[in-house]
């Protein structure tokens, strides 16, 4: 990993901007849920912010993302606008999916957020197809499939990895290994200690990195994305991380080893990067505070606008089933 490219100062700052946005947005969603105003099956990506933020540094708007229920962090990093995201969470007609999809199906093609799925593993086969489309288009786009450690044990993983490798498709398989699948630990899910080993089984390049470390994550992602753009095929990246809010909001995490969660939170990657920016003189405390209050303003505007908007009308049940509205 020593030969990985490293992010420059501007890039680190940009990673932080994204990670801070994800974190603040996540906290705002949870606040809204705890207040009872927002009732939604929300899967927090808190703790995993660095992964998609560092990844996004090497992605363009027209690169494709297929993510999962635990995916708002991926989407925010990819550029999903917060206003239509909030409106969708609030189920309003102004939401990106007109209130029909919700958090598990957030979609925003303009920012490349093509598919969000609630079915474990199912982001991968679809990303293979987007990779095929990208290859046919010949414009150097890539497709990213994000998924969890648990998803690495489902059949769709296997078929997708093999097919993408076979056809040298520009797909990044990004396993965000937060060590748990719902309440099941990685140790109870497989005998192996690194899911990236599985890349070998398909003749694919596979690496495991500390997803919470912006240098490593940026480097691994950049190398993989560059390879994919150059037509050199897919890569599997296993990014080690932790989910700070358990599986669903309200999860007490009693199934974890004692102290495991607290320990992980000690290493919260977002404040860590913030401190580093200051320590390395990349940004001052004031500059960062300014950035953060700017982000908060955007979020607050999105929240307010979301609740202001209307719910969709019942006629929407007949729309978007097919291209033509049904009778």
């Amino acid at each position, binding site marked *: 990993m020593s030969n990985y490219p490293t992010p420059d100062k501007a890039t680190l700052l940009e990673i932080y901007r994204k990670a801070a946005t994800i974190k603040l947005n996540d906290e705002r969603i949870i606040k809204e849920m705890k207040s009872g105003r927002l009732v*939604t099956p929300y899967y927090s990506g808190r703790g995993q912010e660095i992964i998609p933020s560092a990844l996004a540094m090497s992605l363009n708007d027209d690169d494709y993302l297929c993510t999962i229920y635990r995916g708002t962090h991926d989407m925010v990093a990819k550029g999903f606008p917060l206003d239509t995201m909030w409106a969708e969470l609030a*189920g309003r007609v102004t939401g990106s999916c007109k209130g029909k999809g919700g958090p598990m199906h957030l979609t925003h093609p303009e920012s490349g957020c093509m598919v969000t*799925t609630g079915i474990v593993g199912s982001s991968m086969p679809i990303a293979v197809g987007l990779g095929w489309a990208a290859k046919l288009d010949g414009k150097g786009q890539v497709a990213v499939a994000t998924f969890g450690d*648990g998803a690495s044990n489902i059949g769709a993983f296997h078929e997708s990895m093999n097919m993408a490798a076979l056809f040298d498709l520009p797909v990044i398989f990004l396993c965000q290994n937060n060590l748990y699948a719902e*309440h099941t630990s990685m140790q109870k899910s497989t005998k192996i200690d690194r899911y990236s080993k599985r890349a070998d089984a398909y003749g694919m390049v596979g690496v495991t990195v500390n997803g919470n470390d912006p240098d490593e994550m940026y480097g691994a992602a950049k190398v993989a994305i560059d390879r994919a753009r150059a037509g050199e095929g897919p890569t599997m990246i296993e990014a080690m991380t932790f989910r700070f809010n358990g599986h669903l909001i309200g999860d007490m995490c009693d199934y974890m080893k004692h102290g495991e969660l607290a320990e992980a939170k000690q290493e919260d990657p977002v404040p860590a990067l913030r401190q580093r920016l200051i320590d390395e003189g990349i940004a001052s405390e004031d500059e960062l505070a300014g950035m953060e209050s700017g982000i908060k303003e955007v979020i607050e505007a999105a929240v307010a606008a979301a609740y202001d908007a209307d719910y969709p009308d019942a006629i929407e049940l*007949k729309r978007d089933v097919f291209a033509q509205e049904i009778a």
Partner: protein
Amino acid sequence: MTETTKITMLEAINRALHDAMEADPKVLALGEEVADPEEGGVMGVTKGLSTKFGAERVVSTPISEQAIIGSAIGAAIGGYRPVAEIMLMNFVAVAMDMLTNHAAKLRFMSGGQTAVPMVVRTMTGSGFSTGGQHSDYLEAWFAHTPGMKVVAPSNPTDAYGLLRAAIEDDDPVLFIENIQLYFMPADFTAEKIPLGKARIAREGSDLTIITHSLMVNHAMAVADQMAKDGTEAEVIDLRTISPWDRETVLASVKKTGRALIVHEAVKEFGIGAEIASVINEELFGQLKAPVKRVGGAFCAVPYCKPLESAFAPSADSIGKAALELVA
């Protein structure tokens, strides 16, 4: 052993599992998170089982629905009575080959040499804003699959009694649990209830409402409401969807002359169509009004509350159809 007390369906199912595993050492349980270290199922339905019966008989699995159902089939052929959990009904799609090409057919294709006495428990239902991939009722797929029995209880007593019978049944049974019902306490009697027999939930002479699962509650509310205006609806809780209780349904409709079939699944090509067709065929010329059906709208289950409510049958929409029928 008969006793009466108020418990929830969640408790009733948990108790049925305990009693079945106690009664027969061949009964096993498997699925994601079903063992106690993983908290006994996302909803706690299988709580206590692994502690009591051991980790060999109660197994938390990786996220591998094909292997979960395959394991259940193999164990069943090998002489056991596995109760497999598919966490949510939409995920049966992932294991569809195992269920329909194998579990349902092995007895027939082997000329009766092998049998697959297994139960697949799964939960579903709209009402929690879980959207298009976590709310579907898919009983019609399995009712159309010879060799598979399909059961859907509407209350704790039936849940207990039917699950005990399903576990003792020598054929594969798909057992559908409604999530809203999990939390509703009701009178409870712990007795086995034979598969294939409907329950007359309420007697009436003016029309027959045929339904199952959560919709029984709505149908009962409608019947109570109609009774105020002097119309007496008979409510039939199918309990077993396949094979369904033609005798009970036909006898009732013969008496009332009017039939309304209600299910939360999408109306078109749903199980109501089969029941309506048989009623029409068997009671041709004896009906006072056309058989009506109320079902889910022809679309994926939408996310936001207003659309989600508009999607599913409600006391309102059922009541409206019932009134039209007796008009």
